[in-house]
Each structure stands twice: as structure tokens, then as C-alpha cells.
């Protein structure tokens, strides 16, 4: 039905330019991969080093959240345009998930 080409990917956009942009993107991806690995190492390191529990738990949770944001935005391209509805629904899911987890660690206490 709506076979018409409607997206940004206009075929007239210069091919060379696009390749360069893709490459640029890919570089960002590799950087964020490096950051991911780094965050993971820090998290495992913090546990292996045997720091105090009350420091380690919030710390590694924070690292996990940062890492996930990197992955969502770079690996999963959520930073690209055309992802507005996607963001809305991912945040919605994350929010409801958060409320659920919060409830389960507070009001199931016995």
C-alpha cells in the first residue's frame, strides 16, 4: 500500500558521505563497546576487591544502569532519529519495571 519511500534515506544523498557517516557511527560504537567492557571490569573488580557491601551494591547497580544506557543508545541505535515512540515505550516499560522491583524489595518484607 504505502510503498512510497518516506524515510530520510534519500537515494540522492551522496554515497561517499553516507559511508563516512556510517564509519563515524561505527567508531562511536566501538568506543561505547570499550566503555562497556571497562564498566564491566570495574564492577567485577569492585566485587573481587571485597569492598564493603553497602558501597559495592549501589556502585555496581549504577555501573549497570550507565552501561545499559550506553548500549540502548549506541548499540541499539536509540539515539538515531525516528525513535521517539520507541523511547516513550522503553521508558514506560522501564518505569513500570522499576516500580515493580521497588515494591518487591520493600513491601514483601517477611
Amino acid at each position, binding site marked *: *500500500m*504505502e*510503498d*512510497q*519511500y518516506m*524515510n*530520510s*534515506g*534519500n*537515494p540522492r*544523498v551522496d*554515497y561517499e558521505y*553516507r*559511508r563516512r557517516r*556510517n564509519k563515524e*557511527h*561505527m567508531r562511536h*560504537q*566501538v568506543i561505547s*563497546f570499550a566503555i*562497556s*567492557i571497562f564498566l*564491566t571490569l570495574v*564492577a*567485577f573488580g569492585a*566485587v*573481587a576487591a571485597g569492598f564493603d*557491601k553497602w558501597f*559495592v*551494591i549501589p556502585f*555496581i*547497580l549504577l*555501573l*549497570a544502569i550507565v*552501561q*545499559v544506557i550506553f*548500549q*540502548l543508545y549506541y*548499540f*541499539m*541505535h536509540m539515539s*538515531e532519529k*525516528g*525513535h521517539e*515512540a*520507541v523511547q516513550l*515505550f*522503553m521508558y*514506560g*516499560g*522501564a518505569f*513500570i*519495571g*522499576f516500580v*515493580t*522491583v521497588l*515494591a*518487591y*524489595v520493600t513491601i*514483601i518484607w517477611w
Partner: protein
Amino acid sequence: MAVEQQFTPETWPETPERATLEGKNKFLGLWFFLGGETVLFASFFATYLALKDKVGSPDDLVSTDIFELPLAFAMTMLLLTSSITSVYAIYHMRNFDYKKMQLWFIITILLGLGFFVLEIYEFYHYTTGLGFGFTSSAFSSAFYTLVGFHGGHVVFGLGWITALLVRNRKRGLSLYNAPKFYLASIYWHFIDVVWVFIFTVVYLMGMVG
């Protein structure tokens, strides 16, 4: 831009996964599904946290008794790496380089398989080695269910990518299959994202106690 159209690297659209209405629909559909999956896994995490170390008798194993860092670390590295390799695959897909895309997807599958083998080893070790089975305690049930559902997603993801590669091995890229490859890779990343929380909440927090 019709599904049947033939492309060259020059005419290939910038975001081929969303170049047709079909592709756009699938793209949104999968993402919404992942929104739901977020709640699904959050619910499993919530259950796990509520039942963490809840056992029937003092002899039952709890988290500090079973987890080991090296294994969790190896699994994490495999899965994280498989994520960047699938990013490479999509990079080549967008550059209309079918051969390279296939190559990177195959690497992704191999890494995923590696992860999966380690997970099987892990479960085997816990059940037969330590006597920590699915039915041992509430804690064990919650652990196997959370990690097992993730493992199930890994298997499904591997099957999906494999099926796509096999089906399209001789067909080259088109606007019909580009969205499929793209979606499979997004799904694969999501599995990785979930794992980030699993290794943090289950293994690392389990080590800490």
C-alpha cells in the same frame, strides 16, 4: 521503494530497515515488544530479589555458596562481545555489504553459542556438582527461572539469526530481508542488556551476599 527492487550500494537507502511500511511496522512492533519484555524481566528480577537467599532449612545453599566470579566473567565477556559483532553486521548491512554482514553474524552466533555452552556447564555444575537444583528451595527456583528465561531468549535469538542466514544465504540484501536482519540484531542486543543486569544483580550482588 518496493520490496522487489534491486539495489546497488549507491541506491541502497540509509536506513534500509525502515524504508518500507512493512519494515517500519516491524521495527516499531519489535521495539514495543521489547518494552513489554522489559516489564517481563523486571518481574523476574523482582521475584528473584524477593526470594534471594530464602530457603527452607539452614543447610540449603544460598547465593554466597554457589556463584563464582571467573565463570560469570567469561560469560559476560562472550555476550558483550557478541553484541559489538552484531553491530558490525548491521554496519555492513547499511553499507550494502552482504558478505561481511553474514560473516559478522556468524561470529555473533559463535560467541552466543559459547555463552550458551558455558551456561549449560554452569547449570550442570550447580545441579549435579553442588546439589542446587530447580526444586531445592524458593531461592533456587527463582534463580533458575530468571537466568533460564534469559537463556531461553539466547536460544531463541540464536535460532532466529541462524534461520535468517540460512534462508537468505543466496539471496543478497533486499528491503524484504534487511528489516529482518536488523530486528534480529536489536533483539540480540536486548538479550545483552538484560544480561548486564543479571551479572550485576545475580552474580555480583550474590557474591557480595
